[in-house]
């Protein structure tokens, strides 16, 4: 069932009206009673006092002596005492003021309260005792003027209360408007927040502490929302950027793999060519030795040799292209950049189940290496570590630090240590001793495995560096490569090679 909802201002106005509807009639009747009662009391007090004074006058006896004196005194009561009726009875004599209302016949002796009967007259009867007289003074006072004053007072009171009620309503409406203004403002801002607009700050000017605190709390919430929103946006942006980087890296990696495939193919062709060139060169050599110096064929065979030499040069070029010759172009290299590049490429391939940690020192002495080969070194070692941890939630750690006094094979010098450790299956001693051999895991021709670490070894050797492995079954493996550090005084003449 739908619940009837009304505004805060209406509730306040309704409360004020309800309160006044209860209070105002009670106030009206209460005050009315007091006003009426005080007027009545004053009237009765006045009537009785007046009657007493008149009675005292009669008791002096002077007025009783003649009817005209008596009538004069009775007229006084009518003229000055708001009387409507005045009569004195003395035995069989009865004197009545002619100024009173003529139609009042019989004064009631029992009319001792205000507004008794329906004649608007208040009767007072007093006995007068004086020198054998047994007279009775009967006076009737007009209630009308007092009644009019009471009605006037009640009307004024009603008017005052009505004005008060009106003013109270106006004040209630104004107050409720003022109260509801900050609430409406809060409502507007919370609506705009709900619709996704967090930018508007919540400034609510109000003197009401609870509303002020509520607004401050809402403003805190809004700021928190803005912060959360900003952080989320930044995260999304970061993710987009890393996605783009990942795509670029994968593109780069695919490009490199294509190049490597071409290189591997070229290497195979070069191998075949080299084998073909051996008999051509050697047989031509021996044939030349056999021929007499005058033979016309000598020149031809010398041309065969020259052609073979050219073919050898071509093969050399192919090998150079595919880097088959392995003549690393050594230059000063910053291993930090090399590792960053290698890890970038590697992480594009590695499964997220592997956690990659780095422990890389802030400053690292340069080393002499081929930057491209060094990147491959990093990828090969990481790939090897990754394969050792396949199917597990492993940790791969890559580290780099300066060793100012490193002793190795009897030589102490400054070296740079680069290590890759894994939490994989590890190796026994026998295996560890042979892992760098090119054919260690390759038992038959045509299976191209088991060269990864021998390639690593070849690259390390070509840099004049040394590789050692620390491992035990079930304990993971750590490969440590010690590069001779190039000292500061040695490097101003050479410029740093950029990482490929």
């Amino acid at each position, binding site marked *: 069932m739908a619940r009837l909802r009304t505004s805060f201002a209406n509730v306040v106005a309704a409360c004020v009206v309800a309160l006044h509807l209860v209070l105002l009639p009670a106030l009206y009747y209460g005050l009315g009673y007091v006003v009426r009662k005080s007027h009545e009391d004053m009237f009765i007090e006045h009537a009785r006092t007046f009657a007493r004074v008149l009675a005292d006058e009669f008791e002096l006896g002077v007025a009783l002596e003649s009817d005209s004196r008596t009538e004069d005194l009775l007229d006084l009561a009518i003229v000055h005492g708001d009387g409507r009726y005045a009569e004195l009875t003395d035995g069989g004599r009865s004197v009545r003021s002619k100024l009173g209302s003529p139609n009042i016949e019989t004064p009631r002796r029992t009319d001792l309260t205000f507004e008794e009967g329906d004649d608007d007259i208040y009767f007072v009867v007093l006995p007068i005792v004086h020198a054998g007289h047994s007279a009775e003074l009967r006076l009737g006072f007009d209630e009308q003027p007092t009644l009019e004053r009471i009605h006037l007072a009640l009307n004024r009171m009603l008017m005052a209360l009505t004005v008060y009620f009106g003013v109270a309503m106006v004040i209630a409406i104004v107050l409720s408007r003022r109260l509801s203004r900050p609430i409406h403002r809060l409502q507007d801002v919370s609506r705009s927040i709900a619709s996704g607009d967090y930018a508007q700050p919540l400034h609510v000017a109000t003197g009401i502490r609870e509303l002020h605190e509520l607004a401050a709390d809402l403003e805190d919430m809004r700021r928190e929302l803005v912060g959360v929103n900003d952080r989320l946006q930044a995260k999304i942006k970061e993710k987009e950027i890393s996605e783009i980087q990942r795509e670029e890296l994968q593109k780069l990696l695919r490009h*490199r*793999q294509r190049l*490597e*495939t071409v*290189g*591997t*193919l070229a*290497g*195979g*062709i*070069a*191998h*075949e*060519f*080299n*084998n*073909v*060139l*051996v*008999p*051509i*060169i*050697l*047989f031509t*050599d*021996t044939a030349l*030795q056999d021929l007499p110096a005058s033979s016309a064929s000598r020149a031809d065979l010398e041309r065969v040799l020259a052609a*073979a030499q050219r073919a*050898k040069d071509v093969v050399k070029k192919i*090998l150079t292209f*595919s*880097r*088959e*010759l*392995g*003549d*690393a172009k050594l230059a000063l290299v910053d291993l930090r950049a090399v590792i960053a590049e290698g890890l970038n490429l590697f992480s594009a391939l590695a499964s997220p189940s592997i956690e990659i940690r780095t422990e890389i020192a802030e400053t690292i002495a340069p080393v002499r290496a081929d930057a*491209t*080969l060094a990147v*491959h070194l990093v*990828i*090969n070692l990481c790939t090897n570590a990754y394969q050792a941890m396949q199917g597990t939630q492993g940790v791969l750690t890559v580290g780099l630090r300066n060793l100012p006094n490193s002793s190795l094979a009897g030589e102490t010098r400054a070296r740079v240590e680069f290590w890759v450790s894994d939490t994989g299956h590890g190796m026994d001693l026998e295996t560890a001793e042979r892992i760098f*051999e*090119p*054919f260690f895991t*390759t038992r038959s*021709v*045509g*299976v*191209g*495995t088991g*060269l*990864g670490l*021998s*390639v690593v*070894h*070849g*690259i390390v*050797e*070509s840099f004049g560096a040394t590789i050692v492995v620390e491992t035990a079954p079930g304990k993971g493996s750590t490969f440590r490569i010690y590069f001779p550090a190039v000292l500061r005084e040695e490097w101003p003449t050479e410029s740093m090679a950029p990482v490929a």
Partner: protein
Amino acid sequence: MQNVLVVDDELDVRDAIKRVLDRAGYFVRTTSDAADALAELRRCHADVVITDIIMPKINGVEAIDSIRKEFPAVRIIAISGGGNFGITAYQPAAITTTAYLAAASRAGAHLVLTKPFESKDLIQAVEQVLGVGHA
């Protein structure tokens, strides 16, 4: 006369080497694989073994290892023209010639020679491992 055993899976290569060394005054025998070479060595002594590295069945590095163990006195020359096993193998910037020959050296080859070479390089290499001329 000193005995040389040439091990190479390519007929033309081993015949050409044989021709050059024959003429240089060595007694040369040839085999096409490492297993035959070991059998030949057991049958008849050789002073020098010239072996290819990339060969079917048993590769040159293993062959050198076996020869060094069984015949420690034999001088060994490893020859290689580089190249790769299988073109799909992942071998980043393969430095295989260097790697193979380095592996051969570690296995015990006294000298390594890159294919192709000229007659004089070959003769010089054999003389070198035998300690003739060069020290």
